[in-house]
C-alpha cells in the first residue's frame, strides 16, 4: 500500500518534535514551493519602494523574479520578470521609473501592468493585434495591508485579511509608531546568504531561548537591555498568533519599565521632536505607544519585523536561503530614522554584531540536521506551562518554543490539505 502525502507529513511532524529530513530533502523543498510559496500569501515589498506612478522595483517570491510596479493610475502590480516570447528578463535594473518594459532580445514591449503593447515586424504573426492574449506572467492576487504588499500565486483562497488574522494587529502597532501613521522602506537592503534551510530562519525569529547564548558576546560589551528581555525572569511572552505567525510580546517588560522610549533603549530627551510629534498626533494614547514600542513578529512564511528592522526570508534550495534586511523608517520622524538606521547597520547583515552569529548558527544547524542520528529535532520547551490569553491565543514564557509549535501546525496544514486543487488551479510556475 502506498502512503498518501498527508500520511508522509504526519509521520514527519509531531506536536513536540519534527524530523530532520524536513530541512534537508530537495523533494520536500520542491513540495514547499508548490504548497506554500506558490499558494499562500507571501510578503513581497512595501508601497514606499514604489512611491511614484510608474515606479518599479525588482523583488522575489522564493526563486521567482518578480517586478513590483505601480501603474500610472497608482495600482500595485506583481509581474513575473519573463518575456512571453522567449523567456528573457524584461527588467534588468533593480529599480527605476518606467511605464513600460522592453525585452532586449526581440524588442517585445509590455506596459507596467503586464499587458503586451507591441512586437516588432508584426507581419510575421499575421499582423498587429494577433498576440493580445500574451503578456507578462502575473502574480494573480495582490493585496496591501498598512503599506505592506503581499502576493499569492493561487487565484482563489483565503483573503489577505484571513491570512494575516491576528498578525494584522502587529502591523497596526508598527505604523502607529510613525507620527504620520505610515512606515517607509527606503534604505535599501543587505542581502545575507545562509547555507541553511529557510525554516531554521523562520523558527529562530521568535525563539526567545537563544539570545542569551548566541548574542552574549555583544550583550556583554555593548549597553543593551535585550538580553534581559529573554531570560527566565522576564515577564515577556511568546504568542502563537495562529496561521503560522508568532510574536515575542515584550510589552509586559516595557510596561514594567514604564519609560517612554525605553523599548528603543533610549529616553525621550534624546528624541524630543519625535516624542512631541507623537503626543501631538495621538494625544493621551501616545504614552502607551511610546512605552510599549514596536512589535517583534514573524508573519508566515517570510516577513519578520524585529522592532526597527524588516527581514524577508527568500528560500532558494533546501540548504540555501537569502535574508534580505533593512531598517524600517517612520514617516515624519527623521530624528528616529537616523538612529534606527545606524543601529540596524550595526546589528544586522553579513558583518552585523548580532545577526552574523545567528547565521553562523543556521549554518551549523544545517550541518547537524543532515546527520543520521538522532533523526528528530525537539520543540517541546514550555509545553507544560502554556496558557490561553484573553484573545484565545496560546502563550508561553519568554524562552518557550510556543512559536515553533504554531509554525509547524500551520506548515503541516498547508502541506497536507487541498493538494490537488492547489496544484492545478494555481497555474504555478515550475
Amino acid at each position, binding site marked *: 500500500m502506498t502512503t498518501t502525502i498527508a500520511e508522509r507529513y504526519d509521520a514527519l511532524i509531531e506536536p513536540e518534535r519534527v524530523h530532520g529530513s524536513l530541512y534537508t530533502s530537495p523533494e520536500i523543498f520542491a513540495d514547499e514551493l508548490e504548497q506554500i510559496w506558490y499558494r499562500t500569501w507571501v510578503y513581497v515589498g512595501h508601497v514606499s519602494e514604489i512611491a511614484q506612478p510608474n515606479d518599479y522595483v525588482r523583488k522575489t517570491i522564493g526563486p521567482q523574479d518578480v517586478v513590483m510596479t505601480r501603474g500610472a493610475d497608482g495600482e500595485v502590480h506583481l509581474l513575473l520578470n519573463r518575456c512571453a516570447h522567449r523567456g528573457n528578463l524584461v527588467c534588468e535594473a*533593480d529599480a527605476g521609473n518606467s511605464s513600460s518594459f522592453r525585452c532586449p532580445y526581440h524588442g517585445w514591449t509590455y506596459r507596467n501592468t503586464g499587458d503586451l503593447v507591441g512586437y516588432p515586424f508584426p507581419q510575421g504573426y499575421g499582423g498587429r493585434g494577433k498576440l493580445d492574449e500574451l503578456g507578462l506572467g502575473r502574480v494573480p492576487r495582490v493585496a496591501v495591508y498598512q503599506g505592506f504588499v503581499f502576493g499569492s500565486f493561487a487565484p482563489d483562497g483565503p483573503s489577505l485579511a484571513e491570512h494575516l488574522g491576528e498578525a494584522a494587529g502587529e502591523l497596526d502597532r508598527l505604523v502607529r509608531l510613525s507620527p504620520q501613521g505610515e512606515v517607509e522602506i*527606503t*534604505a*535599501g*537592503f*543587505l*542581502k*545575507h*546568504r545562509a*547555507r541553511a534551510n529557510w525554516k531554521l530562519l523562520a523558527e529562530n525569529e521568535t525563539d526567545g531561548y537563544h539570545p542569551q547564548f*548566541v548574542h*552574549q*558576546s*555583544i550583550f*556583554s*560589551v*555593548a549597553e543593551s537591555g535585550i538580553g534581559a528581555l529573554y531570560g527566565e525572569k522576564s515577564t515577556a511572552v511568546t504568542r502563537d498568533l495562529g496561521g503560522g505567525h508568532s510574536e515575542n510580546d515584550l510589552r509586559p517588560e516595557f510596561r514594567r519599565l514604564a519609560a517612554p522610549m525605553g523599548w528603543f533603549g533610549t529616553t525621550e530627551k534624546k528624541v524630543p521632536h519625535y516624542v512631541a510629534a507623537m503626543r501631538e498626533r495621538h494625544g493621551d494614547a501616545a504614552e502607551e505607544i511610546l512605552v510599549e514600542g514596536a512589535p517583534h513578529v514573524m508573519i508566515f512564511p517570510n516577513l519578520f519585523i524585529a522592532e526597527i528592522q524588516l527581514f524577508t526570508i527568500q528560500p532558494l534550495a533546501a540548504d540555501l536561503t*537569502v535574508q534580505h*534586511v*533593512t*531598517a524600517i523608517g517612520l514617516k515624519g520622524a527623521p530624528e528616529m530614522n*537616523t538612529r534606527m*538606521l*545606524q543601529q*540596524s*547597520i*550595526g546589528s544586522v*547583515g*553579513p*558583518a552585523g*554584531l548580532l545577526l*552574523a*552569529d545567528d*547565521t*553562523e*548558527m543556521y*549554518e551549523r544547524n544545517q*550541518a547537524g540536521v543532515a546527520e543520521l542520528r538522532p533523526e528528530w529535532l525537539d520543540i517541546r520547551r514550555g509545553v507544560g506551562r502554556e496558557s490561553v490569553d484573553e484573545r484565545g491565543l496560546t502563550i508561553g514564557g519568554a524562552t518557550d518554543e510556543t512559536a515553533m509549535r504554531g509554525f509547524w501546525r500551520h506548515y503541516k496544514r498547508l502541506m497536507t490539505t487541498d493538494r490537488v486543487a492547489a496544484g492545478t488551479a494555481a497555474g504555478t510556475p515550475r
Partner: protein
Amino acid sequence: MNGQDIRRIEQFLYREARLADEHDYDGWESLWTDDGLYWVPAGGDDIDPTTRMSIVYDNRRRISTRIKQFHTGKRHTQIPASRLRRVVSNVEILGAEGAETTVEANFVLVESRERGKEIWAGRYTYRLREVDGELRMAYKKVALVDNARVVPTMSFLI
C-alpha cells in the same frame, strides 16, 4: 610626493593587511586615529550611509565595540577564526590635504572556513594621517565588487 612616501604608505597598508589577516585585533585597532571611520557600503560604492544600509559603518566607538566583541571569545562566527590571506596591490596616492593623504588600492582576499572557501575582492580607500610621526588610519572604505549582490557572513576585519 616622492618615492619614499609611496614605499612608506605601502608598508603601512601591508602591515594593516597582515594584522587583519592574523586577527591581531589590538594591533589593528591601534592603527586608527581617535576619529576613525570604517565603512563597507552595500548596494553600490557611493551610497549615502546616513540614509542607506551599509554592511559596516563604524565610527571609532563602534570599531572599539567590534574589537571587544571578538575578545569575549564568544563571537561565534569567528570561532574558529576565519583563515585569511589578502593581497593588496595597485596602490595609488590620490591626493594630500594638510596632514592627510588619500590612498587607494585593490585587494583580493581568500577566506577559508568549515563552510567552504570565499573569495572577497574590492577597492580600499584610505585617508592616512600623520600623528606624532606615525601613519594612522582616519578612514577606511571597502568597496566590495559584490556589494550589490548576495554576500555570505563577513565577520572578520576586511
